[in-house]
Each structure stands twice: as C-alpha cells, then as structure tokens.
C-alpha cells in the first residue's frame, strides 16, 4: 500500500549497494518516496544535517525524521510498512539468523570485496581468498533454498542482492570466476533478477566496473 501523504525521502548515490537495498525494499512494499541523488564529493547540507555522525548515504527521512545505516533502515522499513512483502521472518530465532547473515555481509563480504579491488599483489590475493570464503559461507547458508528467506524473498536476499551487480567488477579485478567458485549464489542472483524490483534497481555490472576503475584512479591504485 503506497504511503498516504507521508513524506519519504531517500538520500542516496546511484551505484551504492547499500542504498539499493532500501530502493528494493521500498519498491517491494509499494512505498512512494522522493529519491535525492547526492554528490559525495560535495556533501549537501541536508545530508550533513541528517547524518552528522557518519555523513554517509543512504539516509531515509520519514516525516522529517532521519534514519541512517542501511540495515537499520531496512528493519525500520519492514516495521513501518509490515503488510506487503514482510522481509524479516516472524519467529525470533529465524529473525536472529537473518540479522546474523545480513551483518556478516557487511562485516566480511563487503569489506574483503573492497580490498579486492583496492589492493594489488599479495594483499589482493589475500582479499580474494577471504571474499571467496565469505561468499562460500553465504552459499552454505542458502543451501538448496530458492531464497535466503526460504520460499520467499526476504531480508538477507535484499541485503545481498545489490552486490550481485558488483560480481563482474570483483571478477575482473581479481581475475577469477565467481560462478566457478559459488554456482548456487550466481543462480540465486539470476533468480532475484527476475523480480522487477531488483532488475530495475541494480546498476548495470559494466557501469559498476567503470565506477570501480574511476575509484581506483582516484585512490591511485593503478
């Protein structure tokens, strides 16, 4: 059910997988919102005022109240708009498990993925190894289920799927094939892409790779 006259604003950056989590969730729940693209090289007053501690996107501003940190925002969205596509399961143990894996994605997968494209030589090899290990653990958690949420697209699926668009960049930088290492994850990613909310949100993998190349230049990696 679309929000009835409530103001929902999303401060975001086009290629951010963290922002994309929220775009997918809001779309799944049919919530209308205003998307405000941020210039991260020249941060807006609104962003700095809305997230003074971290000064980062994404920030959700609901009825003028800002919320930061993508997984915290994701939980918030699920709690405020619970009726359509509930993302978290209802049982406490299953919920704790979902939180654990979403947190794992940020702590281990994203962190090693970033080092993978940022670093060179031995450090890069180490990052690649850790990235693959992390992805394999996620693959183990997925098992033979259609989604991490079981038969339904859920919290961990939303948390992970934006990174599917980054696989091409990771593979090219690290010179390896994710499909070879984690075929079930790639198959899961393709299944998620059949959902319009996902396919319309995720960045084009080639554009992500070009963005990574731009970042590498900016950080003086190559």
């Amino acid at each position, binding site marked *: 059910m679309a929000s009835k006259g409530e103001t929902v604003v999303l401060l975001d950056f086009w290629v951010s997988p963290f922002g994309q989590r929220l775009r997918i969730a809001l779309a799944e729940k049919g919530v209308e919102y205003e998307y405000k693209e941020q210039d991260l090289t020249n941060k807006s007053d609104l962003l700095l005022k809305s997230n003074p*501690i971290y000064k980062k996107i994404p920030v959700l501003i*609901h009825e003028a*109240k800002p*919320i*930061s*940190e993508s997984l*915290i*925002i994701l*939980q*918030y969205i699920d*709690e*405020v708009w619970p009726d359509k596509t509930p993302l978290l399961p209802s049982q*406490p*143990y299953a*919920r*704790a498990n979902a*939180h*654990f894996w979403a*947190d*794992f994605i940020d702590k281990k997968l994203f962190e090693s993925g970033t080092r993978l494209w940022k670093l060179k030589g031995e450090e890069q090899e180490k990052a690649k190894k850790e990235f693959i290990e992390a992805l394999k*653990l996620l693959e183990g958690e997925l098992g033979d289920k259609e989604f991490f949420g079981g038969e339904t697209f859920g919290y961990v699926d939303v948390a992970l799927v934006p990174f599917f668009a980054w696989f091409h960049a990771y593979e090219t930088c690290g010179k390896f094939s994710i499909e070879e290492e984690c075929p079930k994850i790639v198959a899961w990613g393709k299944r998620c892409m059949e959902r319009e909310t996902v396919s319309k949100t995720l960045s084009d993998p080639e554009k992500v790779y070009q963005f990574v190349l731009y970042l590498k230049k900016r950080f003086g990696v190559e």
Partner: protein
Amino acid sequence: MASDDVKLIGAWASPYVMRPRIALNLKGVEYEFLEEKFGSKSELLLKSNPVYKKIPVLLHGGKPICESLIIVQYIDEAWSGHSILPSDPYHRAVARFWGHYIDDKWFPALTGISRAPTDEAKKEAIEQVFAGLKFLEEVLEKSGAGKPFFGGDTIGYIDIALGCNLGWLRATEKLSGLTYLDESKTPLLVCWAEKFSAHEAVKCVMPETDKLVEFAQMLKAKFSAPPSK
C-alpha cells in the same frame, strides 16, 4: 516450544558478554554461564559459532545465537516482561543506530588508545572517545528528558550497549591517568554510569575495575614479552 534450557558461553572480562547477561537478568531468565578459559576455545564454542569463533554465544534449547547485540534483540523478542527496545519504530532505529556506533566507532577508539602506534594516532583515538561521549550525552539528554536511563525509567538497549563498556572505561582511566567520564564535560553520563552500575541486573555481572587493570597488564606483558626459547 523448545526447552527452556538457556546457556551463555562467555568470559568475565568481556563487555560483549555482559550484554546478554544484563538482558537475561532484566527478563528474569535463569541461565547457565559457561566460562571460556582464557587462551583457548572450547569445542562447544567452535561448534556453536563456526563463523567467528567468538563469545558471547547464547544457546537456547541447544540453538546458538551469535553477535552480542543480535543476542540482546533475540532475548527481547523471545521472552516477555521488561522491554529492552522501545516500541516505536523510529526510536528503535535510533537505539540500534547508537548500538552500532558504539561498536563500530567508539569502543574501537577506546581500545585503540593503548594500541596506538604513534602519539598522533593516540591523540586521535582519545579525541574520538571524548567526541563519542559528547554525542551520547546529547542522546541521553534528548531521550532521557530528566530520566535516569537512555531507556527512560528503566534500562534499555542503548544503556546495555554502552554500559557494558564501563568496566573497561574505568580501567583505561586508571591505566592512563585520564578521566573520560568527566562531570564538567558529560554530567548526565557520570550520573547515569553510577545508576547503571548499581542496577540489580548489572552489578552482579560488572567486572571489578582493579581486576580488569590486572588483566590488561597481564595481556600487555604476555604480548610484549620476548619469545621463549
């Protein structure tokens, strides 16, 4: 319903372990505390938390839950009684945000002080700790509205997330000679720290500052001692 068998794998000195202990105490849940021996990890721990191999781990009816703040949220949901998280989604998000900030920025800055490789890095870490306390003082002022705790009249999520670090904060003050919880800078937090530490659900699990100082000195000696032949 799964058995009421509740176990917590932990260690006395860990602030992260304190969090679920406080939460369980607030809910009046009896549990068995399985203390890990320092320097080694039990089979049960490795089996229950194969991903991180870290404490705390809550075992409820044999099923493991890991990561301290995830465990606290689980305890809040699995048992009725004292509410740890607020009921309003926005205030829940604010509470979770500060829990995340404490673990992501503030506590690493605190432990980073003694580990800082340069004076510059040490100065930066100390500044971060003070800056964080200033933010949290503002949060307490805003949410507390004259109440003793972040959770209002009773202990809540932010109280637990922050309060578990008081032991190490006091130990760091003793070891460094610097006062972090300063009445002239953060008077509300000073008052809060006393009330929190004296709370029934907390005082039995808060480690003694002197024991933590001893432990820190032992760790320092162990890791800076030359390797034995």
